[in-house]
């Protein structure tokens, strides 16, 4: 068997060598490890020992010639081997006498950890699939409607926005169907809703967005309304409240006939004197603050260090506006008479409608009241506001036949009062006690009395 | 006429020093002590956060400074060399600017106090890293020799602790191989923060290492300014004239703790310190000069008052100067304005 000898690498950075002198001639025998040629580089001079025992069959490079390392320079025929056709086996460059090096596969080299998540470094990554050889690949974003936007790159988002193209309407040519920046640019020049651009996933192609035409105040079906900061904040606060406080709910039915009469008697003079309307709200708030005095846990909040029983009684009034929900606060509500509450709440409602509430108006609430009944609601389960222990509603006043104490039937004005409570702070015992007390006070108000 | 003037004057081995030079040495010692103390006073007043003292080194440094040739030699000191700094020509005002970290300071208020830098005086900039400056001194000495500048030498100083650093050894070795114009002045005050000499080295006589490097070595009494002068002068003359480097070791004592951040009573006794205080070089040299009739008591008194005046003026002037601006932080990272990202 013929063994090809190549120019060895004599030094770390050497890339070529010169054949100085052949110590054997073709036909001469040579032992394994016997020097058979002298080569030189500008760093090192060396005698090269034969790798096998046999006969020097052929010299391929003449003395004085410089060749790159790894170039074939001679052929030795091994002793006892069947002579084969001379085949110059070109070894990989830089491997020297590579006949004895273990083979290395491209797969083995490719199976490197270079694209693996780096140990000790927590970077949220796109989902990674591992091919059989360990070579990590990045999984494509799911092209379904819900996740399509989630998997979209910043460049694609930006370009889609700039060119007013719905990403879901584009057929992606990237890995596993990903929409690439090039795809968006191509779609932009071709036209946004070409029929050929059908997405592979199930949702029908949504019509192109016309930003600026659909608002919260005037929503148009089939459109996406951009979030204002107000809506974003409301969303965040609602989620936070519901996710933090375990909401429980209770309701009582209150006979407001007498307090309603009281209100009716006073309302015109009040409006003339103050300019504000006299609704049932200030009467309600008055009853609430009195009940809170007897049930201070309803005027509290849950903290990690304990249940903070508030000293002040600051009643927030939930006011729904066309595109916004605000809760301005009547500070020190327990110190105000019904008239004072009416004026304070009237001012706040007026400011809210004129969008003139200050940050201070909106801060410091300890309990919240919501006059839901103005819209005809019969019962509601409000979401607790700002980490407070509870929120109470006044529902609509309905004239109904009720059974009186002496078992007669009378027509009375009945109003449901609903309470959502934070079950970490109060339980049924306190909450129903509070509601019962509130009912009693409301039913005891009017028809005569001083505001 | 005072009693001392009628007494027989004690003979004094002056090593060639004139009366004026002796007085200058003494004044340097007084000024060092005064400025040193001022730093601590300001610290106790809450005006400066840090002070580092050099009490015990006055004789050694004043003597060495007298052997230094201004305008020619180069000094590569360490942070306890207040006496050498003023001895080679730094102004008390410059010292106080450093203590107050004012913008006008040579280092723009960037360095700890006592880390002087003055191209004018030939004082090489250095960091707090012990022994890091010694190869620099060797490199500077090489430059002097390379340019054929005879008559110039580098005086590099360090404490006993620094001689343990690898870079100290590497520097001595190189300096000796190339016979550089360098004098390694070791100010052996016998303490390296809390490490006494006995734990710093097995052979307490540092000068003996010189033989191992193939150069001369000498030890002298660091509490005696004249002897200090003589030893350093011998070594500097040798270096300046092409005789190569040497190690001169002045033995003194560190009377104070390492700095205001150190409490030395946690590792040594008051008795030990007070025993060494008996050899305090400042009052010692005062009586030597008085006894030798070089100065009168009145002159000394006037000198002390003048030193105090000079210190006070320097303190007030420096204190009145402004801090560097916040924007000064960004200057002099490289030549010209710079960002790592272009």
């Amino acid at each position: 068997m013929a063994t090809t000898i190549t120019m060895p690498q004599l030094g770390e950075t050497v890339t070529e060598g010169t054949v100085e002198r052949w110590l054997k001639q073709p036909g001469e025998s040579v032992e394994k490890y016997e020097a058979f040629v002298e080569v030189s580089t500008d760093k090192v001079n060396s005698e090269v020992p034969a790798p096998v025992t046999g006969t020097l069959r052929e010299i391929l490079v003449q003395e004085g010639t410089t060749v790159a390392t790894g170039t074939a320079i001679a052929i030795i025929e091994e002793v006892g081997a069947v002579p084969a056709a001379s085949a110059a086996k070109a070894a990989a460059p830089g491997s020297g006498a590579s006949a004895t090096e273990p083979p290395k596969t491209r797969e083995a080299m490719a199976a490197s950890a270079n694209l693996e998540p780096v140990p000790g470094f927590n970077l949220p990554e796109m989902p990674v699939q591992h091919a059989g050889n360990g070579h990590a690949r990045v999984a494509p974003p799911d092209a379904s409607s819900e996740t399509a936007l989630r998997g979209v790159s910043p460049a694609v988002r930006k370009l889609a926005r700039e060119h007013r193209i719905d990403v879901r309407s584009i057929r992606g040519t990237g890995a596993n169907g990903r929409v690439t920046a090039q795809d968006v640019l191509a779609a932009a020049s071709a036209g946004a809703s070409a029929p050929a651009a059908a997405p592979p996933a199930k949702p029908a192609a949504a019509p192109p967005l016309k930003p600026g035409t659909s608002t919260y105040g005037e929503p148009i079906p089939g459109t996406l309304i951009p979030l204002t900061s107000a809506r974003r904040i409301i969303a965040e606060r609602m989620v936070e409240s519901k996710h933090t406080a375990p909401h429980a709910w209770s309701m009582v039915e209150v006979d407001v006939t007498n307090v309603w009469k009281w209100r009716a008697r006073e309302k015109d003079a009040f409006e003339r004197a103050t300019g504000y309307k006299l609704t049932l709200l200030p009467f309600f708030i008055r009853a609430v603050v009195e009940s809170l005095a007897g049930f201070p846990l309803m005027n509290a909040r849950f903290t990690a260090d304990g249940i903070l029983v508030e000293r002040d009684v600051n009643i927030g009034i939930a006011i729904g506006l066309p595109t916004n929900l605000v809760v301005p606060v009547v500070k020190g509500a327990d110190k105000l008479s019904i008239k004072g509450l009416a004026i304070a709440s009237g001012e706040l409602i007026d400011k809210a409608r004129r969008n003139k509430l200050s940050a201070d108006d909106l801060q410091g609430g300890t309990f919240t009241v919501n006059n839901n009944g103005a819209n005809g609601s019969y019962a509601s389960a409000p979401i607790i506001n700002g980490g407070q222990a509870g929120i109470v509603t006044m529902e609509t006043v309905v004239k109904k036949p009720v059974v009186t104490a002496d078992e007669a039937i009378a027509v009375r004005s009945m109003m449901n009062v609903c309470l959502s409570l934070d079950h970490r702070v109060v339980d049924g015992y306190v909450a129903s006690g509070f509601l019962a007390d509130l009912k009693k006070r409301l039913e005891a108000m009017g028809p005569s009395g001083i505001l | 006429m005072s009693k001392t003037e009628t007494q027989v004057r004690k003979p004094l081995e002056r090593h060639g020093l004139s009366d004026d030079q002796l007085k200058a040495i003494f004044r340097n010692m007084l000024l060092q002590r005064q400025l040193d103390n001022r730093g601590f006073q300001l610290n106790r007043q809450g005006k400066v956060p840090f002070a580092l003292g050099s009490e015990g080194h006055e004789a050694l440094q004043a003597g060495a400074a007298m052997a230094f040739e201004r305008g020619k030699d180069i000094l590569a000191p360490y942070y306890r060399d207040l006496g050498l700094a003023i001895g080679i020509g730094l102004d008390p005002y410059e010292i106080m600017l450093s203590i107050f970290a004012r913008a006008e300071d040579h280092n723009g208020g960037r360095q700890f106090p006592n880390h002087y830098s003055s191209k004018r005086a030939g004082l090489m900039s250095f960091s707090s890293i012990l022994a890091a400056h010694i190869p620099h001194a060797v490199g500077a000495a090489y430059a002097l020799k390379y340019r054929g500048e005879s008559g110039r030498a580098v005086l590099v100083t360090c404490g006993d602790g620094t001689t343990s650093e690898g870079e100290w050894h590497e520097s001595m070795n190189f300096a000796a191989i190339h016979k550089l114009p360098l004098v390694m002045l070791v100010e052996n005050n016998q303490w390296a923060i809390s490490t006494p000499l006995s734990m710093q080295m097995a052979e307490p006589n540092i000068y003996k290492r010189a033989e191992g490097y193939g150069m001369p070595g000498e030890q002298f009494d660091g509490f005696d300014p004249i002897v200090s002068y003589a030893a350093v002068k011998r070594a500097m003359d040798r270096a300046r004239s092409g005789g190569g480097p040497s190690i001169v070791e002045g033995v003194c004592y560190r009377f104070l703790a390492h700095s205001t951040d150190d409490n030395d009573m946690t590792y040594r006794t008051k008795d030990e310190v007070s025993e060494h205080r008996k050899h305090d070089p400042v009052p010692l040299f005062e009586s030597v000069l008085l006894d030798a009739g070089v100065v009168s008591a009145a002159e000394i008194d006037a000198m002390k008052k003048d030193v105090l005046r000079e210190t006070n003026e320097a303190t007030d002037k420096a204190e009145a100067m402004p801090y560097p601006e916040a924007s000064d932080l960004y200057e002099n990272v490289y030549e010209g304005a710079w960002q790592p990202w272009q």
Partner: protein
Amino acid sequence: MAVASGSQTMNNVEAVRATLYEAMKSDDRTVIIGEDVGNRGNVFLITKDFIKEFGPQRVIDTPIAEASIVGIAVGMAMEGLRPIAEIQFADFIYPAFNQIVGEAAKTRYRSNGEYTCPLVIRTPYGGGVRGALSHSVSIEALFYHVPGLKIVAPAFPADVKGLLNAAIDDPDPVLFLEHKKTYRLIKGEVPDGHYTIPIGKADVKKTGTQLTVVSYGLYVHWALEAANALEQEGLSVEVIDLRSIRPMDRTAILQSVRKTRKLLIIHEDNKFGGIGAEISAMVAEEALFDLDAPIRRLAAPDVPAMGYALPLEEEYMSSPAEMADSMREMVKF
């Protein structure tokens, strides 16, 4: 000074040698200091016979003491010489860390400009030469963090000359990294005469439209090999040779990324904490909305060094084929 008339073909080792020679000839303040630089002429023969022409005072054979090789050079620089210190292999530089990072880098800053340190530290780095644990490391990540230093790593002979001249002229300390495998492997045309390339400027060695590859040192050459192979497949990859690690050419990087929208950083050093991390952070900060794919880094795994055995060296390093695979994947993403 020679007038630039033509050019010569030379490899990287010759480019270093020729540049150093001209620097020694033209400025008396230039000295070379390091181990075996004088009588041996450097272990790669870079300064062969310099000592005969310039003398032992200018070509200084030091004791084996890396800290003081740099420290003494710092002192020389502070005192007006223009020293070029050599650390025989980058793997030996660690004892000099204090002098480089704590002293050289801070000399101008701590003295507020009164003292400066115009120093060049040259050292061969990098693997692929069966150098194993102590003759193969990359060190740029250890030093590029340090303000006050400059670091360059040219890969082509013309760049070697221009940047070495710039480093020698620079008034601040420059770490000049020479990839030892490129010493004899890489040949190129080098213009005659004295010229400098500004430190801090990268070079687009191949333009492309679908992917930006940033690399330096030996890997630039392999990245080009891979990019050229991909060109045959119809894929267009742009290859930027950083040339300068600190300061780094963010303008060139951002310009390219904004065009291709995809970035692959390839370096020989370990991935974790390698300079690719800084490039990634910068691009994410400045060009997030231009990116159409996550920034990727192809770099060495988190092991201390490449081994002596060939499979260990090859596993540590990234071959042109691996580079091509990564490039292809990113283009097609």
